[in-house]
């Protein structure tokens, strides 16, 4: 018989042997077994240290051990059934294969095996080490809920369920990884989400073949969307439960991956990455204003530096009204090189700030902002304009709500800067056109990436630029092909 199909033996001692072989019982210090004799039968309890709650187990055990007192009157019933009836827990499952029992024990459940019974009783006493929901660092808001997803998939689905108490909201559990056996849940609302999309996601998930996914959702993303060397993100990540719920209601599909505090939103276009919860927490007018300013920031992060470089190196392009722009001082280093050095410098700071302890990074930021820039100008390395425009572009980068898009934009910017420094105007226009064509050609799970700009959809485009009041937006966005296009059931 194959190993996978091995049944649980009648004698728990034999199971001990099997466990020693398959679960490293006795070798691995965190795997344990407790042996009892209850009602005259051998009872073994298998567990993993640290993943289960001792208090629960003690509670269950104290019930079982008391069984011996009034066992006599129940002679007619099989001891295994008596023991099962006295497991004081709401979640008890039967498992009859050794491998399944081991999987469960390794997930932090306990397996209770009774002599003479060819099955294990799996009791869910899991208690994973983890933190409480707190506000995610990358998606802060002034107003709005402060609970974010955590590393535990059960808490994450619960946070979502708290916001949508719909029986049609579904979380389909899958296991990914031959060795890691990580839980991945597909979340969608039946009747809104496009069934084809759900089918595709399900198929892609089941076809993943890998030993483990310690990098959780990012690995799943790479398997599903086949990213290649494309820097632009095709899915959106969020750590905010309210954003997750909002997208579910729009007909998106969410992927929850255990051990990751971010969930994947599928599909996501470029303009999905431009949205921020803050806009929806302010009045529509303010939200619209914020959005426009943000677009200006994003455009600046892409085009400001190359455009300035172009105008500065070819001043005859400047219209009369803007003649003052451009470096007024002599430069020692070509402007393009200065810009690239400045950009690289900002990138150094960003990289360094990620893994520098907070007290140090404050000090470092000060050194960077005040000293390096000023001294670079004093020694003649940079002209002041380079510092100005590089900083503006950097701030534009940070104003991009999506971290992934902001970094991808940075790469596109460097590409355009290089094109400008080599080919001037033709370089600028052709590189820009190429970036736009490249983005337009991209498809995120059959969704055009630049929708609703390319292909153009006037109605949806107006919603990108104007944050509409919720009572006024009756339709779900059409791009995810929702089965039920109306948000307001009676408001048709």
């Amino acid at each position, binding site marked *: 018989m194959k190993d996978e199909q091995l049944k649980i033996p009648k004698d728990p001692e034999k199971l001990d042997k099997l466990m020693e072989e398959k679960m490293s019982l006795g070798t691995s210090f965190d795997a344990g077994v407790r042996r009892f004799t209850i009602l005259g039968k051998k009872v073994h309890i298998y567990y993993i240290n640290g993943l289960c709650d001792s208090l629960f187990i003690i509670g269950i055990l104290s019930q079982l051990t008391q069984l011996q007192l009034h066992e006599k009157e129940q002679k007619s019933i099989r001891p295994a059934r008596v023991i099962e009836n006295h497991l004081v827990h709401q979640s008890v499952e039967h498992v009859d294969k050794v491998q399944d029992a081991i999987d469960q024990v390794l997930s932090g459940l306990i397996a209770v095996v009774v002599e003479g019974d060819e099955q294990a009783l799996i009791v869910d006493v899991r208690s994973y080490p983890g933190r409480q929901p707190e506000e995610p660092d990358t998606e802060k808001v002034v107003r709005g809920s402060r609970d974010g997803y955590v590393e535990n998939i059960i808490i994450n689905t619960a946070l979502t369920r708290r916001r949508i108490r719909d029986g049609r909201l579904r979380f389909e559990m899958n296991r990914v990884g031959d060795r890691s056996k990580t839980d991945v849940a597909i979340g969608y609302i039946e009747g809104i989400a496009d069934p084809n999309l759900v089918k595709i996601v399900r198929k892609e998930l089941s076809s993943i073949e890998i030993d483990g996914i310690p990098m959780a959702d990012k690995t799943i993303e790479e398997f599903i969307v086949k990213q290649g060397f494309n820097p632009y993100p095709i899915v959106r990540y969020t750590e905010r439960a309210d954003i997750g719920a909002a997208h579910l209601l729009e007909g998106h599909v969410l992927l929850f991956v255990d051990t990751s505090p971010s969930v994947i939103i599928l599909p996501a276009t470029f303009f999905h990455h431009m949205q921020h919860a803050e806009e929806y927490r302010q009045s529509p007018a303010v939200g619209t204003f914020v959005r426009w300013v943000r677009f200006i920031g994003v455009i600046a992060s892409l085009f400001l530096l190359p455009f300035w470089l172009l*105008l500065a190196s070819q001043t*005859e*392009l*400047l*219209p009369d009204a803007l003649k003052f722009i451009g470096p007024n001082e002599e430069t020692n280093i070509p402007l393009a090189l200065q810009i690239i050095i400045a950009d690289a410098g900002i990138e150094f700071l960003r990289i360094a700030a990620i893994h520098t302890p907070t007290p140090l990074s404050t000090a470092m930021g000060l050194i960077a902002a005040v000293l390096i820039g000023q001294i670079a100008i004093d020694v003649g390395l940079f002209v002041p304009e380079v510092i100005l425009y590089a900083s503006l572009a950097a701030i534009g980068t940070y104003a991009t709500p999506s971290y992934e898009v902001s970094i991808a934009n940075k790469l596109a910017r460097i590409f355009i800067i290089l094109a400008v420094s080599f080919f*001037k*105007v*033709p370089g600028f*226009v*052709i590189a*820009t*056109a190429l970036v*736009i*064509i490249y983005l*337009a*050609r991209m498809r995120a799970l059959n969704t*055009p990436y630049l929708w609703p700009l*390319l*292909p*153009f*959809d*006037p109605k949806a485009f107006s919603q990108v630029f104007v944050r509409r009041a919720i009572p006024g937006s009756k339709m779900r966005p059409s791009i995810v092909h929702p089965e039920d296009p109306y948000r307001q059931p009676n408001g048709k």
Partner: protein
Amino acid sequence: MERGKAKETEASFPLSYALTIGLFGGIIWSVVAQLAAYFHFMTFDINAIVEYVNIPKLHSGFYKVLAGIIFHTILSLIVAAAYYFFLKQSKTIWTSILFGIGVWAVFFILLSPLFPSLPFWLEMSRDTLSTSLSLFALYGLFIGYSISYGYERHLLKEKRMNWGNANG
């Protein structure tokens, strides 16, 4: 209600869809073209055509730009209609880009000998040539991709509708 809906989707793909795309495409890309001209990326006067109209107020300054944008938008409607009639079945975005370059060729190779205000492509500077080509390629992409995608969606919807009728 039910009947009206069915009728609506069964109707053929409307020309008005293409014209809407043409309208917005014209506005967006002529504004971009004005900006490019403002920064001397293109050295010829893109609004020169306006001077054929005998209203002196339109021959300079802001009104000239505005008249230029309106004129280009009207042209854009015709271009969008042309795409609608000949190329809407196209599936790839490269057709759209080539279509844009084709429109460019019509203006700067075929029509420029007839209109003195349009430069002939061989006489253009490198800057003007690359900018105008890129603009037209993106404009073609906008018009073509949008119309083709709309058409594709329309067909899909119709198919679903028929499928629903056959089974219901």
